[in-house]
């Protein structure tokens, strides 16, 4: 079998996930041995047209032009992967969805509005079928490699949709919320990052989106009544990365 052709695309995002992809050094030679990177503008000068076996899409869709491109990419890729928080749930760009009308959001950013054609920011599965998700801001390289292997084997990747708390406790971290009173979102956020932030003494910001059966409303109450956050602070926490998801929306609306 010929090596599978892989493509990497970018929409509205900071390009951090692509950069993380370039940090793959430890696995780079093995991955290059297993796949053919056909299209990756950030990494190579010579890029090839589709079709591709696996397409990785970074970024949220925030304009009609991006939407047309996304639909073309979907047709060209056998397996389509949403790469990173923006492509999975709308990510940081989706903050604008909760800041008034689209026009109001545009006015806050641009002075010349005549050429601005923007739409609310959604993850790419709002528009096209997505086969797999690499969560996080940025993605986790271990999960990336696991996903490539699973796609080559034709099986579902072994991702853990459990809470970040699970990975955090396995590392025997002192709990930032219970023991330090910090508003950590690990209990309702999907694991897979190895509890990276809490392990570095930083509360989880929820970048990987909701864990399965996340009870954000209950955590929002704790933030409000026990940690003394303001209503706006609690709302902002749940809308920051995955406010488009019904689970985190419940957290924002619970206060």
């Amino acid at each position: 079998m010929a090596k599978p052709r892989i493509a990497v695309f970018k929409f509205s995002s900071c390009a951090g996930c692509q950069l993380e992809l370039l940090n793959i050094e430890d696995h780079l030679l093995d991955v290059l041995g297993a796949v053919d990177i056909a299209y990756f503008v950030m990494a190579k000068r010579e890029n090839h047209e589709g079709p591709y076996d696996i397409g990785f899409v970074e970024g949220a869709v925030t304009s009609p032009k991006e939407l047309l491109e996304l639909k073309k990419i979907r047709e060209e890729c056998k397996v389509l992967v949403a790469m990173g928080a923006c492509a999975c749930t709308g990510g940081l760009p989706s903050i604008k969805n909760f800041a008034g009308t689209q026009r109001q959001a545009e006015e806050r950013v641009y002075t010349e509005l005549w050429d601005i054609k923007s739409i609310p920011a959604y993850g790419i599965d709002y528009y096209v079928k997505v086969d797999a998700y690499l969560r996080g801001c940025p993605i986790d390289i271990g999960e990336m490699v696991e996903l490539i292997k699973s796609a080559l084997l034709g099986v579902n990747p072994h991702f853990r949709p459990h809470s970040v708390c699970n990975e955090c406790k396995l590392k025997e971290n002192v709990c930032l919320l219970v023991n330090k009173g910090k508003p950590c979102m690990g209990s309702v956020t999907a694991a897979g990052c190895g509890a990276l932030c809490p392990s570095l003494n930083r509360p989880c910001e929820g970048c990987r989106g909701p864990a399965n059966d996340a009870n954000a409303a209950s955590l929002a109450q704790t933030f409000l009544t026990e940690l003394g956050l303001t209503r706006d602070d609690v709302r902002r926490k749940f809308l920051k990365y995955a406010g488009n998801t019904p689970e985190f929306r419940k957290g924002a609306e619970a206060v």
Partner: protein
Amino acid sequence: MEAFVLPKAELGGFVAKLKADYEVFGPVAKDTEFVFGPIAAAEDLRLDYDTTILPPKKYFHRPVETLFKFDGAVEIAGEGEKVGKQVLFGVHPCDVNALLSLDKVFLGTYPDPYYKARRENTVIIGLNCVAPCENGFCSSFNTGPAMDAGFDLALTDIGDRYVVEVGSAAGKELAAGLAAASADDLIARNKALRACQQKITRRIDAENLGELLHQNVEHPKWEELKEECLACGTCTTVCPTCFCFGVKDYVDLTLKSGERPRTWDSCMFYEFSRVALDHIFRPDRAARIKQRIFHKLAYFSQQFEGSPGCVGCGRCVSTCIKSIDPVEIVAAIQANPNPPKEVKLFTPVIKKITPEKSPWEPQKAVIKAIKPQTKDTTTYTFAFVDAKVQEAYTYDPGVFNMISIFGIGEAPISISSCADVKDSFDHTIRAVGNVTNALAKLQVGDIVGIRGPYGVGWPVEEMKGKNVLLVAGGIGLAPLRPVIKYIQARRDQYGDFEILYGARTPNDMLFTDEFEEWRKIPNTRLYLTVDYVPPGVEWGHNIGVVTTLFDKMASRPENTIMITCGPEIMMKFVVRGLLARGFSPEQIYVSLERRMSCGIKKCGNCQIGPVFVCQDGPVFKYADIKDLPEEIF
């Protein structure tokens, strides 16, 4: 009780002596909390600790552990990390008792070689509690503040020295050179422990706890907890008696070689009870909370010879963001209980099986024949590569094997042949998950891994001299086919035999080429039905769900055993229909085989109430399971 004293001033020398022969682990400070970690010298030890983040369970049942490595299907190397001699220093009574409970899980049926090796190589120096911890309620279960078993040495702080009790020959050796405890020392020890006991105010009234919970399966408290609980699984992760885990294969980029590790898992997680086709048996958070509390406070002792499933260490309370507390839950139920009713507690039969080699390591088996049954279902004929293994292989109708495709994983699949055939065995498999889809790509001559046989099969002995009614739906006919073959070969030992078989369409029926043969078995009737007939397909039999055949059948409740397997919704209506026709729950046998995972009563995935489907079943008498706290059908 043989007892010595260890002056605190001599602790350093004592630990240094241990270090000569053992790796020493004990409580150390981590930020504002404590964890069990390596001890370089006695100064590292924090014997004033209250509790640790993770229990010492982590030294025996590892959070992540490789069961074996593989290279393709041919090379399988038993793994398990090398275990040196180690000492756990300063283990509190709750955690010592938790290990005694875990021993029942991992050293009972199919002893786990990795856990066993570590247990045998570890010396436990316990530390009785002279001050209660904030959230502990150990005295409720008699698992603290003092320990009376499970240690090699047990220390009690009596001021300037420790009283050192001896609990084993190894402990006695380590105590060599210590001065004997005086009568005053022992009085001081008892005083200190009694004083601590009196200060423990948090308590679960453990009297008839199992009955209380079983009577309150439905209680407003569970719905209240559902609103509170974050489903983060921290309570189970830090629990010293939780044993559940998941097993997955991981390959390297060659896609051929890799390893099969097990990783701690939790019944608090949404996908814990997920099976093929993405069905989840416990999707409701309230049901999962109930499972945890019931397992800790009731099921565990039903499952493992009265061992406590909760030792009152209080970790789940201390680490819960919402402060969900078993003491408070039980008190709330006791304060406002449902009206009493009689409850029948299921008591499993404890088996002890000790295989020669690791129960995790599959035997290699070769695919001898492949026979398509329907569009997505195939019968594979296997034989073990090792002729001696094949020769010795025997099984009861209705039991199952774990089939491995190395690099993809394992799946439990019932055996569809009868053990009367000696040189091979069959599995009839529908391609619906990772393993079964990978199997569908294999060819005759390819190798797979097989562990088994496991479980309890159909009651072919009890059925002797009686009439048999067999009701199958779809793929459910596969585990019933061995019974048909078994009865066919022993026809004179059974009465009338009726087979009712339903499938979605005529093209979804299995073993159609055997129907004529089955019809020729004396005193046997075969009735067929399908849900619908697609245009252009010929069908001369019944149309409708399988229960519509009940009006045609001759079987009556008298002297009849009924066995059924199929989708749970089908079995539910079959059971209801037969009860309405006068069959008793004692006459009805069902198979719950979809729920199994490890096959050897270790991973916990298949639990329904106190039942382990993989070992207590998959075939159950309906009377035994109809009152389980988790309604089945």
